[in-house]
């Protein structure tokens, strides 16, 4: 079999192999919007972005199970929801799963073949020229903002792609049998994933990802009800926090985006900060109040704020000695 393997196909593989460390306190799953949606660098929690472009919910679940051992007790698991998450079915092209060969056990990889596995191993070994840093997706480093035309164009391309993928002319039309079946399957899968999180002492949260205003004609309130709200009702019966940035004003500006749907470096940082702040509200820390109260107090008696030698009773002690000459001289 001749396989056209290329380095870029494995951009997302390296992070699983290279960056995984124990004690991860927050992670996110997801496809491209997730991959470009979160950046935990510099945040208080030790995070890992487990999204891959593209990645279905089914593969999300497998990746989560595979990397559960690296997550700390009570780690947050962010599940990004994008406009068509509810009807996205697993990919049918075997090459889509090549990137998982070094990552998942064979039984978890759809269309697994030993021959392909060998070929991938050979290819990856050939890349190993001793460099310590594996190449990452260059788009992750992009911190500029595309022009208006580029944004419009990317929105149009995405819309056309979705119409093709889901065989739709108009997103307001009734779900076809296939899409309806996918909707139910995906809801069931999400339900299982959330159950898994709870059983594993993980704290899941669904994140409605922001989209640029170039989709405003498509992502109407009706669209949201049909593709998001109904899906959530079906999948999670309201007991999982939903962090909603669907129409968040902080993401109205183009300068947060890489294209019409995905965030650039700045947007990624902003969204991550929002998510961490909102998680603190949704999952209140029982020790937060104690910590805040003590930290505030300790600042007041910190050496930094206190002249040394520190002795608030020095005067009383000195007076006492002066009145009791037997104790002098000191």
């Amino acid at each position, binding site marked *: 079999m001749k396989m056209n393997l290329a380095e870029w196909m494995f951009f997302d593989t390296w992070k699983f192999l290279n960056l995984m460390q124990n004690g991860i306190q927050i992670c996110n799953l997801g496809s491209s919007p997730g991959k470009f949606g979160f950046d935990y*660098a510099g945040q208080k929690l030790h995070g890992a972005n487990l999204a891959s472009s593209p990645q279905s919910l089914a593969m999300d679940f497998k990746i989560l199970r595979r990397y559960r051992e690296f997550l700390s007790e009570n780690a947050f698991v962010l599940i990004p929801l994008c406009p068509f998450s509810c009807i996205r079915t697993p990919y049918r092209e075997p090459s889509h799963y090549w990137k998982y060969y070094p990552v998942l056990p064979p039984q978890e990889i759809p269309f697994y073949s030993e021959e392909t596995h060998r070929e991938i191993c050979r290819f990856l070994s050939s890349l190993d020229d001793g460099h*310590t840093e594996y190449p990452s997706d260059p788009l992750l480093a992009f911190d500029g903002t595309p022009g208006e035309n580029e944004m419009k164009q990317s929105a149009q391309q995405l819309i056309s792609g979705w119409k093709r993928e889901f065989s739709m002319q108009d997103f307001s039309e009734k779900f076809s049998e296939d899409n309806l079946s996918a909707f139910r399957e995906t809801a069931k899968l999400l339900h299982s994933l959330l159950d898994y999180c709870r059983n594993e002492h993980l704290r899941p949260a669904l994140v409605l990802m922001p989209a640029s205003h170039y989709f405003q004609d498509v992502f109407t309130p009706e669209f949201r009800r049909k593709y998001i709200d109904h899906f959530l009702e079906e999948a999670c019966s309201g007991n999982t926090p939903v962090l909603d940035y669907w129409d968040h004003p902080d993401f109205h500006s183009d300068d947060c985006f890489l294209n019409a749907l995905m965030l650039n470096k700045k947007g990624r940082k902003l969204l991550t900060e929002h998510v961490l702040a909102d998680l603190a509200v949704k999952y209140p820390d029982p*020790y937060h109040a104690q910590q805040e109260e*003590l930290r505030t107090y300790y600042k007041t008696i910190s050496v930094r704020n206190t002249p040394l030698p520190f*002795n*608030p*009773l020095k005067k009383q002690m000195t007076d*006492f000695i002066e009145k009791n000459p037997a104790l002098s001289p*000191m």
Partner: protein
Amino acid sequence: MYEIIAENFTPVLFRNDPFFWETGLKTAEYNGRRELSAGGFLMLNREHLYREKHPESFLEYIMADRHALHLAYGPFCDYDHHCFPFSNLLKLGLSGILARLREGRRKNTCPDRDDFYTAAEKGLNSVQKIILKFAQAAEQRKNATEDPADRTHWERIEQTALKLSQDPPGTFFEGLASLRFFYEIGNIMDGIGMSVLGSPDRQLIRLYRADLQAGRLTREEAYDLICRFMLQVDCKLDSSRPLDKQYNAGEQGDTLILGGLDEAGNPVDNELTEMFLRAHEELQLIYPKIQFRTSRRTPAELFHLVARPYLAGRNVIGLLNDEVLIPALLKNGKTPHDASGYVAGGCWEVIAEGTEHSEGANCYFSLGRAMDLTIHHDPELLKELGLDFKQPDSASSFQEFLDCCMDNVKTALKKMLETIAECGSVWPEVNPCPFFSACLDTCAETGLDYTQGGAKYSPHSVPLTGFAIWIDSLESVRKICFENREASLQEMLTAVRNNWKGFEQLRKKVLSLPHWGGGNPAVRELAGEILRELHQFITSFRNERGGPFQCGLYSYSDIVFWAKQTRATPDGRKDGDFLAQGITPSRMHHDSITSVLKDAASLPLEDFPANSVLNLNLSRNGLTEDALVALLRCWTEIKASGMLQLNCISREELEDADRNPGSHEGLIVRLYGYSARYVTLDADRRREFKERNLF
């Protein structure tokens, strides 16, 4: 002073913390310094007595500190690194301690002890008054609120304070409250540093089980209390600030001892051990420092719980080896009960809890610098230190060279030990601690403060550092100059004195020789002989309290800062190269972990009850939990040191942390008896850490 403190302080109570302890009379960051708390008044005003006792000796002693030969923290007596006698308080309560004191006074016939009894009683009465003031403050807060939850909170503090003002704790909550309160009050009253927060699994399990049985407490409530108990300690410091901008470079003491054996040799670990470990991990704490006592009977599940944080980049747990330390304590005169109750104060200073203060960290002695002063002819410096060292140049055999080195190190040790004994004898006048003494065993009977030798034991620890330099230097001279005759002694000395400049080939030969940690039987034998000889020598002196000097093998951040003053040595080390911690091998060799552990296990560590510390940095790449547990078990069972300072790290991660510190704030590394965020380390500390051997 006690009465002034009790009269004038204002209790500080917290709405969100269930315990009471804060008097406002001590700064946040650290406990053990006289300038940081109200109780340090006496020492601050009387420490001139140390200087006046023998001004010339005082000066030479201080110079030895400045010139990196030995530490002079105190300067002669260690007023820090104590453990409050919690077990006595938990058993007797304040009223029981007071009764014991009065009984001692009644029986004591020496009139010169009256001052001690009077002061100690005033101390205990003052502490009772302090607790009652907390009770009153809580009552006032209770009466000022209508909120039922608030009322319950304040009432619990009020009732607990009333109880503890007289009696020992009767519940798990009261037990935790006792540990917290007496730890703090120990620091405040006498101006000495308490470093240990207790051994809660050992000390409170009876109360916990009684509560569960009586339905007063659930496991979840106990876990919540444990979280809140530990959280307070971690709130004192802002661990995200650069380490060199933090007070005491981020070291705040505050250790918690878990696990270990009882006097019958049975493991004491229990469900509380597990809860403390889990809570520490779940809250991602750095402080309190957990010191986990291992033994061959430690259950596998606990080893796994201990191993997990390391693999998560949280190198926050210190490991104490009961298989080494208990026999060492027994051999050095402790009873089985006292030996099995040991704790490690601050970083590693072994203390028989309730019965002694071991002065574990005030006179680290550098064998590395002693070798430097032997080799490098420096009469000016020796004069400043008041030392008369022999020159090794004329040695015609290895034995003569060895004798010269050993004579010199003994000369320096003798001077240090005699100065401590002489000048430190004024300690009772500088800073008597009657309250603390009254809580220790036997001071009530003897009528003597612990600074006068009134406690059951009065050891003064002498921790040696630069061990690898000493052994490797001797070995290289033996091999190069007297066995292989590849260079004369004079050539070797010249090379070292020139910092190996122009002698690179000779240095290469030296670095390829058998060395400490390399698994060579002759080196092991030499190391063992030297330690036995030093132990015999050091323990032949009596300390300032009339007790023994006891040996240890460890030091502190001196491995970084003393290194700068320590010139080249015959082991191939160059001017300023970092020292190795405790019995850790030199950084210049890359040996297998097996040979390092075997060499370490060959040492007569039972002669080093103060502790013997081994550093190991393991590569996290590919390291599994099972493998790490196996290693910990092996270290324990072959008795490879009294304490293990372990780090599991990856070079790539450290390099990435240097480039992208924001992504690695959770990476915590074990430094010198304490842990800190790697990204807060200054350049020197980072370099020292990265230059440690990685296995």
